[in-house]
């Protein structure tokens, strides 16, 4: 167990049961393999990117880490402590303490702010719950938080509908910062924002990391923004991590055919770059009955018999570069 790790996820599994509609009783028809045995760790003060297409289990992973849903199997450590046990057993105060350390910023800033609360109420609500700021200091603290995310004091008296998407996302970030967390999960924080506003929020996240030493789990399907903000990146496909490496290494020298296909599929905003080549055909298979062996094999150009039979393990092929593939792109 490395000292530098803030979060450790070990063999995490989450299956969601699927039911068929019966006349009287529901019948269980199978499981959605949302997250299937993933292991990774997030170092202190780093931004860990999690990428993948819709349905690959990115958001489920985030919800598991925050214990918003319980895992089917596996362990999660925060600061070296097993938090699944803590959430299951310990007292309310203990849980609250733990909750204070981890916060979430959602994708949709229109849905995640209560329209009937002022910004002041929204940002000070965590103070009511966690009681970590004396009431006299609330106002001062709210103003400070607003300033930290690039808003003004007079914004405190306004309601969410008076703000644009980018400003709302700033409010969400201020609310997350109100409890002085160590760790923030940002789940697609810029995908619903306009292009000119995205850079503002990405830069804000970067600046906050530098000034208060936050650790992020940055979840997105937008590879360009992931590269921009992350130190290390994990690529997920159908509930599995298929590759994990430093951001530059991963995007410049991908080892897994799926990672390569993902990268190739992103159009580069420069007409001079080479033509896009499509390597990936078909669609992501159903997570209810995932393919045998390597889950990517039906769409993989390098697949051979072995791939369909036995699942490849995530192994360190180069230094700090893990990949789960029998025929990685090394030539």
């Amino acid at each position, binding site marked *: 167990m490395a000292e530098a790790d803030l979060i450790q996820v070990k063999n995490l599994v989450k299956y969601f049961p699927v039911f068929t509609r019966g006349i009287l009783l529901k019948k269980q028809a199978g499981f959605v393999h949302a997250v299937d045995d993933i292991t990774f760790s997030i170092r202190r003060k780093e931004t860990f990117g999690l990428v993948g297409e819709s349905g690959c289990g990115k958001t489920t992973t985030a919800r598991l880490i925050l214990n918003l849903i319980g895992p089917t199997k596996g362990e999660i450590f925060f600061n070296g402590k097993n938090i699944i046990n803590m959430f299951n057993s310990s007292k309310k105060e203990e849980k609250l303490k733990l909750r204070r350390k981890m916060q979430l910023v959602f994708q949709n800033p229109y849905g995640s702010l209560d329209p009937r609360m002022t910004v002041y109420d929204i940002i000070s609500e965590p103070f009511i719950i966690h009681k970590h700021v004396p009431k006299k200091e609330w106002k001062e603290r709210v103003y400070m938080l607003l300033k930290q995310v690039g808003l003004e004091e007079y914004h405190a008296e306004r309601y969410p509908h008076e703000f644009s998407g980018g400003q709302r996302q700033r409010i969400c970030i201020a609310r997350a910062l109100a409890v002085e967390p160590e760790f923030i999960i940002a789940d697609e924080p810029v995908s619903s924002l306009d292009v000119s506003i995205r850079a503002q929020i*990405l830069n804000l996240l970067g600046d906050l990391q530098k000034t208060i030493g936050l650790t992020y789990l940055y979840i997105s399907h937008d590879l360009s923004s992931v590269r921009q903000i992350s130190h290390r990146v994990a690529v997920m496909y159908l509930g599995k991590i298929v590759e994990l490496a430093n951001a530059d290494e991963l995007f410049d020298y991908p080892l897994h055919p799926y990672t390569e296909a993902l990268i190739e599929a*992103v159009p580069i905003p420069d007409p001079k770059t080479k033509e896009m080549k499509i390597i990936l055909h078909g669609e992501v298979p159903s997570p209810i009955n995932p393919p045998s062996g390597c889950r990517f094999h039906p769409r993989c150009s390098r697949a051979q018999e072995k791939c369909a039979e036995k699942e490849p393990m995530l192994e360190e092929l180069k230094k700090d570069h893990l990949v789960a593939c029998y025929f990685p792109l090394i030539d």
Partner: protein
Amino acid sequence: MEDTILSIEGLKTYFFTEAGVVKAVDGITFNLKGGESLGLVGESGSGKTMTALSVLRIVPKPGKIIEGKIIYNGTNLLDKTEKEMLQIRGREIAIIFQDPSASLNPVYTIETQLGDVIRAHENITKKEATDRIIKLLELVGLPEAETRMREYPHQFSGGMKQRVAIARALACEPKLLFADEPTTNLDVTIQAQMLELLNELKKKFGTSLVMITHDMGIIAKLTTRVVVLYAGRVCEIAKTDVLFERPKHPYTEALLAAVPRLDMKKTLQVIPGNIPNLIEPPSGCRFHPRCNYATKECEEEIPILEEIEPGHFVACHHWRDIKLKGEKEHLG
């Protein structure tokens, strides 16, 4: 390049809401040549979708086209009767919308929906129509077209639905196709498949394409010429490679600098401020409150779109005086 197929002159589409008049499209002028791929770039509220809807004359209420001309093949579409427009929509000019789940009717099969389009425009039997539909669906890469066309939209994945929507748009081989953010809801690998498909079909049918998007990557890969819109007005028109190499409008430059790139890490330049409210848009140049180069003149006078080199139009008072970053790189 062939002749101009579509030319829009001074188009104004306003929305008369209770809160005031929203000037969604406020004097947009550009043209499109036959067989061309034109990109229409802008953020939300820039008027890119409303421009497309105006051309098809399907602007939703309380919106109204109040001024301008839309010349399609020599005639002004705004002078046509509704009956004449019915003949044009789908057959001459078609559109693919952003969200295929919303643009396909959930209670009809794919066969019925595509058949309706074909039989509205062509006098053919049901059997002939069915054969056409199968061919079309195979063309857009829908596997087992013959059986799957009897299914309903909810039985298809997002990517497949968008393929069906593309097939519907192309059913009567239109000469002009608007694609309004057709890949925004899709995953990147599916997006790549769609872009490839659009490109192929465009070549095959010789259709002119107007690609509406906010994604600079798609613009770079798919279009030959670009119109940049901001708050209902045109900022800049240029060939795609010229626009990326030496943008002349501060907004275009800022937009390019604000987009992260997958092939390199760079410092993201921030465009300060927010997108303006179109009920009371900023005076003069609408970008001036967010522009680094703005002066008093920009606040007071609306810049006109001028041609600064052949085929390169800019609406900015200061394009001559300011050295944009893109240009410096170009010179150095």
